[in-house]
């Protein structure tokens, strides 16, 4: 179906792909896995004609790939959900779905009514409830991801590439996606699927290829494979499962739990998002805020960080009332934030890793408002080491990093300021298995030093290290679990099963 032979791609000093080969059989669902920066997304942009390879060839059905400028020809052979958002914020959802292929009426004019009707139909099959005439820029991250998926799958292409489609989706949404993918599989559509969730690979893929450090390592059938085999291929080391467990269970009892709360919300409510939320986070405590996308967990976390102003209730940070909707005041009050939408709120793409990572701590970079580049780079280097960020160095612009490494920069920025309260929304989205452990052990470490942590997420791995997990459903707190819960218990609670 598609075949890449000896594809090499360099970005300045970085070799993103080193003579890799990949062959996807017609009708198969092929997984591509590897650590952050292994070159997966780079291969995707070569396979979809967005970037030219420095060397090597790509063939579809045994024929050479179309010319790079011939976008129509590319669109016929392959459809793709890219890792970076490719919606256009100023255009409506409907138009984003049919960009470049608007339905026409007589005189080759666009029929806007027909466009909206088809867009509504398309989103209905995905059970996405958004007004199609809203600008795409106003959608939540999940909704936007669905717009991208729905668009890619609606081209009717026989080959579809999905680059981390599930990183921004919650459990039920992933189930819906997989239902649709299974339907496509039955129709004989070929799929290339990228994910850091290895269980998803086992769930819907039949073949899996591993990349490591820009090289092709292995391609094997999924049947009979073990998760630890995959991880060994990805990391290049054999490690006993569970050896890295440094969860927060032990950091908990530092005696800090009796101290005054760093965050206290009472009766907090935001219309259309959540109601009556009471929650306290004490120094050294890691509190999980679990729930599916519509549960209000993200909105609540954003309220705590000052991104939203609540409609009612009180919120205190370190004992003082928070200024509603004032991010600056929140930062000065010692709040560090890992926002959900990293591209909009997480970093400035064309600035360097060092500048982004130290953005919250200008006072540590030099006397009297000056910035000493050496001090900045030194601080950035410690953060790069601590969070295992794969980069050419502190001076590399963030838009040259792989998706998972960008996420780590966002994390670095939040940690750089030694916050008293760390608020994180889906902090490990798009981060590889091993780096996840690194990030979470860093969180455990700052907690052990006395920081209160609030993690809003539906990733079980993110929540496992929490001292307690508060589950939200339909905008209200529905349950609370102390550490040591079972996976299916948590999943059921998030999906609203087991409590009315």
């Amino acid at each position, binding site marked *: 179906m598609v075949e890449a032979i000896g594809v090499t791609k360099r970005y300045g000093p970085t070799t993103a792909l080193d003579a890799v080969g990949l062959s996807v059989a017609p009708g198969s669902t092929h997984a591509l896995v590897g650590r952050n920066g292994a070159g997966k997304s780079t291969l995707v942009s070569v396979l979809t004609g967005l970037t030219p390879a420095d060397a090597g060839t790509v063939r579809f059905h045994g024929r050479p790939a179309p010319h790079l400028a011939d*976008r129509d020809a590319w669109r016929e052979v392959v459809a793709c959900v890219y890792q970076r958002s490719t919606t256009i914020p100023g255009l409506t959802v409907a138009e984003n779905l049919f960009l*470049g292929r608007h339905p026409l009426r007589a005189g080759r004019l666009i029929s*806007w009514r027909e466009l909206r009707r088809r867009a509504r139909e398309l989103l209905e099959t995905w059970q996405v409830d958004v007004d199609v005439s809203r600008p795409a820029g106003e959608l939540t991250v999940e909704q936007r991801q669905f717009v991208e998926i729905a668009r890619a799958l609606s081209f009717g292409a026989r080959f579809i590439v999905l680059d981390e489609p599930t990183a921004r989706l919650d459990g039920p949404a992933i189930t819906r996606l997989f239902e649709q993918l299974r339907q496509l599989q039955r129709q004989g559509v070929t799929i290339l699927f990228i994910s850091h969730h290895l269980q998803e690979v086992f769930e819907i893929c039949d073949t899996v290829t591993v990349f490591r450090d820009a090289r092709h390592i292995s391609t094997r059938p999924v049947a009979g494979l073990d998760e630890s085999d995959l991880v060994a291929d990805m990391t290049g080391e054999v490690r006993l499962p569970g050896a890295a467990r440094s969860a927060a269970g032990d950091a908990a009892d530092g005696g800090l739990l009796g101290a005054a709360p760093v965050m206290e919300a009472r009766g907090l409510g935001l219309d259309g998002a959540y109601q009556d939320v009471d929650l306290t986070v004490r120094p050294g405590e890691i509190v999980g805020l679990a729930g599916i996308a519509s549960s209000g967990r993200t909105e609540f976390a954003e309220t705590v960080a000052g991104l939203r102003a609540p409609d009612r209730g009180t919120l205190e940070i370190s004992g003082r009332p928070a200024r509603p909707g004032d991010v600056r005041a929140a930062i000065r009050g010692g709040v560090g934030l890992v926002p959900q939408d990293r591209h909009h709120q997480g970093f400035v793409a064309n600035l360097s890793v060092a500048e982004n990572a130290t953005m919250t701590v200008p006072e540590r970079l030099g006397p009297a408002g000056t910035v000493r580049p050496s001090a900045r780079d030194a601080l950035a280097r410690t953060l790069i080491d601590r969070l295992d960020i794969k980069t050419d160095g502190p001076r590399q612009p963030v838009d040259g990093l792989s998706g998972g490494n960008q996420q780590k920069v966002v994390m670095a920025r939040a940690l750089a300021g030694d916050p008293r309260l760390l608020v994180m929304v889906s902090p490990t989205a798009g981060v590889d298995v091993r780096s996840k452990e690194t990030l979470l052990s860093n969180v455990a470490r700052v907690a052990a030093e006395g920081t209160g942590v609030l993690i809003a997420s539906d990733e079980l791995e993110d929540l496992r290290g929490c001292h307690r997990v508060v589950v939200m459903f339909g905008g209200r707190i529905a349950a609370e679990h102390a550490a040591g819960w079972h996976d299916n218990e948590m999943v059921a609670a998030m999906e609203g099963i087991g409590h009315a």
Partner: protein
Amino acid sequence: MPDNATVTLPGMRRLPALARLRDLALIPAIIVVAIVGQAVNPVFLEGGNIINVLQTMSEIAVMVLAETLVLVAGKMDLSLEATFGLAPGIAAWICLPAGGSAHGLGWLGGAWSVPLTLLVGLAIGLLNSLLIVRFGLSAFIVTLGMQITLHGMLTGISGGKTFFNLPSSMLYIGTAEWGGVPVSIWLCLVLFAAGVGVLGWTRAGRSLYAIGGNTDAAKAAGIRTDRVLWVAITTASVLAAVGGLMLTGRLASVAAAQGTGDIFTVFAAAVIGGVSLNGGKGTVFGAFTGILLLYMIQNVLTLAGVPAQWIGAFNGAIILVALILSRITSGKRQE
């Protein structure tokens, strides 16, 4: 940095229906100015005065249309005002007889003047596109350099003097009337209507928004971004040449300084009309209301008897006032 514009507040959910009316944001301002104008001087709403306003704005308005195409696609063109002067200037230079007071070359007959004007516009547009799209140079600097060069060329070929006694075909669209309304008004309205149609109802037009909003995403959606930019930038230059032809016809001359300084008004009108300098936002209709509002305010001041020496100061102030007015009535940030 947290970007408040991207946070969806629950209260915003119902806005989009209203947002579609954003295009009409300046209409209240235009009505207010009309009422004030009528109060200042009853001549204001008389047919003759309205035609006068529309005709004096028609030439610049065509440039506003041209700039809107380029701005929506995420680029900018500062050389339009120079094309506006140079295109008819070169046509006059080539077609006017040599020797005597006409200081032309006399190479071609007068019938060639209009096609020549358009050709010069086309050539400048192609050169701009070559530098901006093909070679990837900064649109701002390329067109700034182009503007200075073209202004200099007009001064060079005219020797700093004004071209008079132009071929009659050059005067037609600036002087003729159809049904009692000057052709330049008809032409301006037709071009704007076409612009509304193309940008609002054709795939090519919509692709301008996609490119201006997010070029990578546009490419991923199968849009030939380079080709669309070539067409947009070149069309803009041709439109500027048409605008220049309209002014030349009305004044029956090409001054050495034709167009100089007009680009400021052009940008101001576009921004007042809701077109974003960052690309991807704004409509042709909005841009039209922008330039209309500017010229109406100017006309009201003239009718109010503002001394001619003060017009320059007022022109600048008017633009600032109009910017503030449009910010208030549209309720959204200008970019």
